[in-house]
């Protein structure tokens, strides 16, 4: 499972970076989204994947019995997803406004428009 996830994460990083380096703004946003998924999956995977072992403490004990799934990475991922969602929402509105004002989603056109001012 870890190997599969590692391959998936690697592909997501690669695809994300490639998309971010494109000239089109829309593709750039999609790239950022890919990167954010890749990061979330990374955190999830490095926290070690344990199936079917919730971190519940049996009665009369102080600690859950090993091995158990670490809940912390999942909490981190949850926070990261929420923050990433906010950032992407803002970025999408920003490119929409840019597109409306420049009339193109090509970064080179944007440069030209900016240097004209």
């Amino acid at each position, binding site marked *: 499972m870890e190997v599969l996830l590692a391959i998936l994460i690697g592909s997501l990083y690669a695809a994300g970076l490639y998309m971010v380096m494109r000239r089109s703004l829309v593709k750039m946003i999609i790239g950022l989204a890919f990167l954010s998924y890749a990061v979330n999956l990374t955190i999830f995977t490095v926290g*070690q994947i344990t199936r079917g072992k919730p971190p519940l403490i049996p009665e009369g004990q102080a600690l859950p019995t090993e091995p158990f799934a670490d809940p912390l990475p999942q909490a981190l991922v949850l926070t990261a997803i929420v923050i990433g969602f906010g950032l992407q929402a803002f970025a999408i509105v920003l490119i929409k406004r840019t597109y409306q*004002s420049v009339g193109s989603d090509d970064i080179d056109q944007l440069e030209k428009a900016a240097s004209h001012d």
Partner: protein
Amino acid sequence: MTDFLLVAPIITPLITAILCFFAGERIWLQRSISLIGQALILLSGVLILIQVERDGIQVTQLGNWPAPFGITLVADLFSAIMVTLAGLMGLSVIIFSMAHIDSQRERFGYYPLINVLLMGVCGAFLTGDMFNLYVWFEVLLISSFVLLALGGEQRQLSGALKYVTLNIIASMLFLTAAGILYGLAGTLNMADLSQRLPDIEPSGLTTVVAMLFLVAFGIKAGLFPLFFWLPDSYHIPPVPITTIFSALLTKVGVYALVRSFTLLFVQENEYTHTLLLIIAALTMITGVLGAVAQMEFRRLLSFHIISQIGYLLMGLAIYTPLALAGTVFFMIHVILTKSALFLVSGIVYKLHGTYDLKKLGGFYRSHVWLSILFLLAAFSLAGLPPLSGFWAKFLLVQAGLEDKEYGIVAVALFVSVLTLFSMTKIWSEVFWKPATITTTQPLTRSEWVASLVPLVSVVVLITAIGLGAEPMFRLSQDAADQLFDRSAYITAVLGDNP
């Protein structure tokens, strides 16, 4: 009492931001709420500073979860100094905004955003948890995004786009690094990490994570070669926003670098700190060379931000108590000096409506006192005695000589000369040469007050630090000793027997 004190710089701006939203169209109310808020941050910063100086490192465990399980707020001297400076800059910028922010921006959420920005900055300075640091970074980033794009002019949008994209990528790297760090050490509490990281085998992995953090924080701090977004976006928003960005945002990046490379990643000093030294030298040189080539007031100053970041990094890279003291001293100096210069550029713009050095002129004839204020700040930036910059650079150079790092010392001195050169360029273009523009927009009396109160107080501080460097030097020395001796931090957070 301590518990409340450490939370105060974070909770105050949150409350004032919310109150500002409710104040709505009543601008005067928003202004006064923000003023009170910033004054309270400054006050709590000073109180924290006094308490840390007296009783040592202060710690609060949020929600009473013992470290390393809960989120810890930690104030050592360095954090306390930074929070105080953040409050001071917030206060100055809010006063300055009253004359220099247009009413459109004031109505569309300028004040709430500045308050949220300050919350993120103070949170980042006070947190003792890596993931929490990430959250505070996002808080300050998202408000800085909106501040940069607020107004929606075309060039603003294109500058904001670069800034947003690069900073989001930096955040992703930061988060990746934090995730891998958790996988390695099983904790994200900085004190706990500091204790566990030396035992992790192979230590190469820790260094890989350290490099990820270096790139992530480096983008935010504007290090060579990751600084290109900075001069492309900092000259775009109105001056008060540029001032608060230059005073606090890149400095948060440097703060995070200092924190992580003194507390966490000190195992492979040879490798990491040599790399930092090279980056510091290149940052200084490229920054100042970029500045020399500029003919736009704020672009020139933006390039100087980068070159000054190099000095901050130099102290960290040499990594002796004296060098760290230099970094702390330089941090105090550069935040004040840089802000003073940006404030002058704002007043010049308000009077003549342009930032183009070629078009400006004759300022010394028309505004003698303003010119003298600029000159003091410019000389301080270049490092002329007896101003604050001289002592800051003196400390760094002395530390470099003691550690036999002659290369970086030579670079630092050479860059100082170039800094002086580009400052004289502004001087001769804006202040000395005969006036070429006739269009002058005179400021009203209240606008002058709002412009001069922050500028004069900052310049007075620069001069005072220069003339009475001894107490400030002792403070920096104490802060550096705390940074250098990690055990005090660890004991303060985790208790005596972790």
